């Protein structure tokens, strides 16, 4: 079973929910941090990393001794990642989406593959919990291919918890697609509500059941609550603002460590999700 944790707006508490839920559960559990631009779960989980893999994507390299300057590679490329300039063909590897079109279309077989580094995927454990995350190379623009690499570690027999990036565009879709349930984390402010509506839209496009967690539930107004009731989105948990929680988070501590009574809430959250799916 795959549970993705998403939000639309950033900074609403995805990391808090993902890490505390993962650490509270027993059995075969995996935590996949797919916020590869800014992965934070490891700062709270402190996993022992056993394996680091550099992830690359294929990009074109042109052998000018074979090239006839026909321009077919430039014509097929939708991303302006390979350009004929006078008597040379210039690839722009950072714009390349690795579709393989230029290599296939080249009549002279002058184009071969080289690699562009996307970042790393790290695999490790914390007690019984399996931990995987991706770290996008600083300067790399495309996160979805790295997110898909992290997701390849998901085992169907395990309970997989995915921490998704903020927003509603392609990186978020890459982190939610194929999940059995999406847990949306929001805050009861106009920004939280606006971005929640976008996130619900994305979940609906993918056709995945979802539930809501309202964080800092007493700092704002009732509009998020009204929206959730209106849309029949179940509210599974409300976390009032508590300076103790905020300060613990700031130091990298888990809620369930500082306030052990919260473990029961996270176990209940998991049961509610299981019931909703079955």
């Amino acid at each position, binding site marked *: 079973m795959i549970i993705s944790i998403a939000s639309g707006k950033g900074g609403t508490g995805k990391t808090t929910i993902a890490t505390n839920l993962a650490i509270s559960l027993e059995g075969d559990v995996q935590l996949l941090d797919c916020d590869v*631009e*800014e992965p934070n779960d490891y700062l709270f989980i402190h996993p022992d990393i056993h394996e680091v893999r550099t992830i690359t994507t294929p990009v074109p390299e042109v052998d000018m001794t074979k090239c006839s300057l026909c321009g077919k590679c430039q014509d*097929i490329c939708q991303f302006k990642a390979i350009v004929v300039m006078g008597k040379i063909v210039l690839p722009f590897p950072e714009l390349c989406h690795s*579709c393989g079109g230029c290599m296939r279309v080249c009549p002279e077989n002058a184009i071969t593959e080289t690699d562009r580094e996307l970042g790393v995927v790290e695999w490790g454990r914390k007690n019984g919990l399996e931990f995987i995350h991706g770290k996008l190379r600083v300067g790399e623009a495309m996160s979805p291919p790295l997110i898909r690499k992290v997701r390849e570690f998901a085992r169907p027999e395990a309970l997989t918890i995915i921490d998704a990036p*903020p927003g509603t*565009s392609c990186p978020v879709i890459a982190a939610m697609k194929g999940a059995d349930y999406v847990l949306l984390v929001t805050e009861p402010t*106009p*920004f939280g509500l606006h971005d929640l509506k976008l996130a619900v839209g994305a979940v609906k496009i993918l056709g995945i059941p979802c539930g809501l967690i309202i964080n800092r539930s007493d700092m704002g107004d009732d509009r998020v609550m009204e929206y959730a009731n209106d849309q029949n989105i179940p509210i599974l948990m409300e976390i009032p603002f508590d300076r103790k929680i905020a300060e613990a988070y700031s*130091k990298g501590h888990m809620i369930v460590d500082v306030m052990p009574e919260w473990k029961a809430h996270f176990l209940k959250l998991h049961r509610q999700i299981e019931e909703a799916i079955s």
Partner: protein
Amino acid sequence: MKELIVISGKGGTGKTSILAAFASLAGKKVLCDADVDAADLHLIMAPRILERHDFVSGHTAVIDSDKCDQCGLCRELCKWNAISEDFVVDPIGCEGCGVCFYFCPEKAIDFPLDTCGEWFLSDTRFGPMAHASLGIAEENSGKLVSLIRQQGKMLAEKNNMGLLLTDGPPGIGCPVIASLGGASAALIVAEPTVSGKHDMERVAELAAFFNVPTMVCVNKFDLNPEMGQAIESFAKEKNITVMGRIPFDPVFTRATVQGKTVIEFDPASEGSGAVKKIWEAVARHLGL
């Protein structure tokens, strides 16, 4: 013309609230919301939309089942597994690379342009504003960011205004890269948490990579003063100018709920005072 871009790495550190407060404080300026994926600045600015345009970018493949003889070449070539066993393209999975369209032996694949969002030129009580909204689950956010910044610059030139205040997206990926290129300066809004520091360091590295002069301010400083100081020490080491500290103050949330900037809502509050000082320092730094 100067363009200040406000970024953070981590989401939810207060970029939009702080930029909105700057809008209350700065002289003649154009506002620009470059967080096109989850744009929120308009919720405070209440823009009156003067111009509305479709954002057309990229393509999606569509298979014509009457012409398709199910040879399977497209499925073999598609690197995104976006074509189903019964030869239907999943528009969300399709990357828009055109390889299937180009190589289909039956010419059974169409490749129409996508309308993947909208962009707007507006008027607000603080001046002109360029903003956009990317369609849900759409791609090309970087291109829309570049477009909206360009429109913001044109608005500033047209109105003879020397400043563009741009609200940036979170993260370090494609939309952030598109926000940074060519900006006069970036202000990082950091929060004093382990994750806030970690994410601020990564986005600072990105800004340095693009040679954008960078400043930092720490929001909610008193939540963890030790971490706040660690962020400031890191900044000094990396030649990032430290602009000041903002205390944790619920007045920011209360102002947002009312659709106001913190300066409009309660100019005498601690939060407003701190943001005012930071704006003065930023304005001096930008040479305004």
